């Protein structure tokens, strides 16, 4: 009998830290790099089915050009989704409509095959721009559709919008986002410049996805293909970052710092009194860095102890473990060093905040704060070698001296450049060398 072996994802971890603490010191910082290889394709590794939902804004503001681009893009997405994946298409305006499959009850998703793919594309072809925008309702419909297929182990959606969430209050949208936490992942894309980066980022961050601006409708199909391709390459449907700390210790923060900055600190749930699990979503062949800070009760010089066990787990199965250590020492040459990785990502995290705070101050007309924050951002981007951020910043401010962060706000800023700077603010670079 032939033996068929499934591809098996392999996780490895590396810890970067200075484990030496000066007498009386309590805070341990570490960067934990987790790498996944041989992840396999989503839904094809034998661990269960995956579902993919395409959510398209069909509000009146989309107009003819954007609507046509969105239709083209949604069809490309459908073409890219692998056979066997459960799919649904949502058309959203001030209400949420299940465009495909056209069912009113029961399972709200169907398996992709040549027939259903053609039907899905026919449904997309009938979209026309009309009505307002209520993204919370779109998310809640997606949740219900995913829930209607109990066998799903991986759930991913892409959401396209062009405008503000006019037909829902902030509270309503927030409640919907909360309702979808841990239910599925969403990558969000905004077309044009009439949408709010902060609004869409809120959705993407909570639901473990990405956010980006697409200035030109022509780019949309390519963007959708890339998003679906990446989603389909995530053979590990759901994994959690487990952080164990010793009794009496405290987690100060847990952040993903690469490829993007995402603060996970308040998103953990308790596994046992000493272990918290933070959501990380699906994994493909990729590498992510996490910055962990743990506060310990100070111990005597010479003591060595574990400050944290950082693990990646699917359910109860621990796939890799990194050990964060603490050694108290009287040797200042050991304790004074700062890990280059910790220093780098501390700078990158501050860079992301400086950009977001600077742009937000500018939007509120507070040019003084905006100049100061964006100046600091230019300085940090230069120091940490983040050329992408430096280039984007240069489109929003005139840089007099990057080293000191001396800048002047540009008089005329392309709105798309500003939004691109905002959406890309959380993207980090790896340390050089």
């Amino acid at each position, binding site marked *: 009998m032939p033996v068929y072996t499934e591809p098996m994802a392999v996780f490895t971890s590396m810890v970067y830290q200075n484990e030496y603490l000066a007498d009386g010191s309590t805070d341990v910082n570490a960067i934990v790099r987790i790498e996944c290889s041989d992840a396999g394709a989503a839904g094809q590794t034998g661990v269960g089915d995956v579902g993919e939902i395409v959510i398209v804004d069909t509000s009146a503001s989309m107009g003819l050009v954007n609507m046509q681009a969105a239709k083209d893009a949604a069809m490309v997405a459908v073409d890219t989704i692998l056979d066997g994946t459960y799919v649904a298409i949502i058309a959203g305006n001030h209400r949420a409509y299940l465009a495909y499959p056209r069912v009113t009850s029961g399972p709200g998703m169907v398996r992709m095959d040549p027939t259903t793919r053609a039907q899905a594309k026919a449904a997309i072809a009938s979209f026309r721009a009309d009505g307002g925008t209520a993204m919370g309702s779109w998310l809640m419909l997606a949740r219900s559709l995913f829930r209607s297929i109990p066998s799903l182990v991986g759930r991913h959606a892409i959401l396209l919008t062009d405008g503000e969430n006019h037909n829902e209050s902030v509270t309503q949208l927030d409640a919907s986002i909360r309702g979808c936490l841990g239910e599925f992942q969403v990558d969000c894309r905004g077309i044009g410049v009439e949408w709010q980066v902060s609004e869409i980022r809120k959705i993407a961050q909570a639901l473990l996805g990405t956010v980006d601006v697409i200035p030109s409708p022509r780019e949309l199909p390519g963007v959708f293909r890339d998003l679906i391709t990446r989603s389909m390459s995530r053979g590990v449907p759901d994994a959690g970052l487990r952080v164990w*700390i*010793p*009794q*009496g*210790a405290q987690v100060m923060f847990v952040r993903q710092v690469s490829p993007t900055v995402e603060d996970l600190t308040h998103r953990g749930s308790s596994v046992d009194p*000493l272990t918290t699990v933070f959501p990380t979503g699906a994994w493909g062949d990729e590498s992510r860095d996490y910055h962990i800070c743990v506060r*310990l009760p100070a111990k005597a010089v*010479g*003591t*060595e*102890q*574990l*400050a944290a*066990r950082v693990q990646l787990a699917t359910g109860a199965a621990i796939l890799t*473990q990194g*050990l964060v250590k603490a050694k108290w020492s009287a040797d200042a040459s050991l304790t004074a060093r700062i890990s280059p990785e910790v220093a780098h990502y501390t700078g990158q995290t501050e860079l992301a905040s400086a950009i977001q705070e600077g742009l937000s101050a500018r939007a509120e007309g507070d040019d003084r704060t905006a100049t100061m924050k964006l100046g600091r951002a230019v300085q940090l981007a230069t120091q940490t070698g983040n050329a992408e951020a430096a280039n984007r910043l240069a489109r929003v401010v005139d840089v007099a001296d990057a080293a000191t962060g001396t800048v002047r706000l540009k008089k005329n800023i392309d709105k798309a450049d500003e939004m691109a700077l905002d959406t890309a603010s959380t993207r980090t670079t790896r340390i050089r060398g």
Partner: protein
Amino acid sequence: MTTFDHDTPGVEWRPDAPEATVPLRPARPRFDAYPDACAACGGELGIDGYCQRCGQKAKSLREHYEMAPARWVGGVCDIGVSHARNEDALACQANDRRAVMVVCDGVTTSDDSDLASMAAAHAACDLAWAQDPQGTGTPSSRAAALKALLTSAMTSANEAVVDCTDPESVNAAATTIAMAIVDDRWILAANLGDSRVYWFPDGADPWQVTRDHSLAQDGMDSGAERAEAESSALAHTITKWLGRDAIDLIPNMGVVEISRPGWVIVCSDGLWNYASEAVDLAAVVALCVAEDTTALELASRLVDWANAQGGHDNVTVACARVDPASAEC
């Protein structure tokens, strides 16, 4: 049986018989295991070697172990604070009348000194424990027989070190040894290198029973003060040791006739580095001892004390409480 006939497609083939070899590394005690529970909080240990509750790094049984063959005899062998490996070793045996205590300190710059010290300590202890020479019955002949026993223990310990030395090694394993046999009214001590035996009688002058083989001791023999001799750069260079390239195996020996109760201490330099003079170490012992302190408790407190002073070296201490008036010894 191999036969040849025309029908076989070939002949049977066997590889050449391997050359007869002797095992290079005979069985040694395995000390790579971990204890059952965390020494700090009693929590369960993770397979990563750290406590699952308090995170304390567990010491392997090679890095820290304790022996207490009798209430009046006990010892602790500990990695200390600064060193990455425990090259000290401890072995002891006791019943209610006799005790054998051995401390070895592997030479850091030699290969496999952690294996060598362990092999030496157990070999010397096993040999001295297995034989109980009585001499012709007179006290002096008994002491002479015990001295002969110490000499053969040195030989046995050296064979054990050589047995676990890789013949290819250009940096042959080496270790010090200090041992004491407490037998009836006698303490017999012997050493090679700078591990020591002290005798701390209650209410009388303490003294160091052994005499180091070290450049520091040579310095003192030439008239230097102890403090000066022991703080020189080469003070810790030993002039005799166990190992394949040992100079000789003639130990320094010391004999004590026990006339009052007291403590016998066998230790590595990880302890005496912080209190070398017998009176100084006796003062530390006095601080660590209460009415009903067991030998193991005293050894443990002395190790903790050395670690609190910095623990710059591995530290091993074996103690025996002797009392000529009691049933014990």
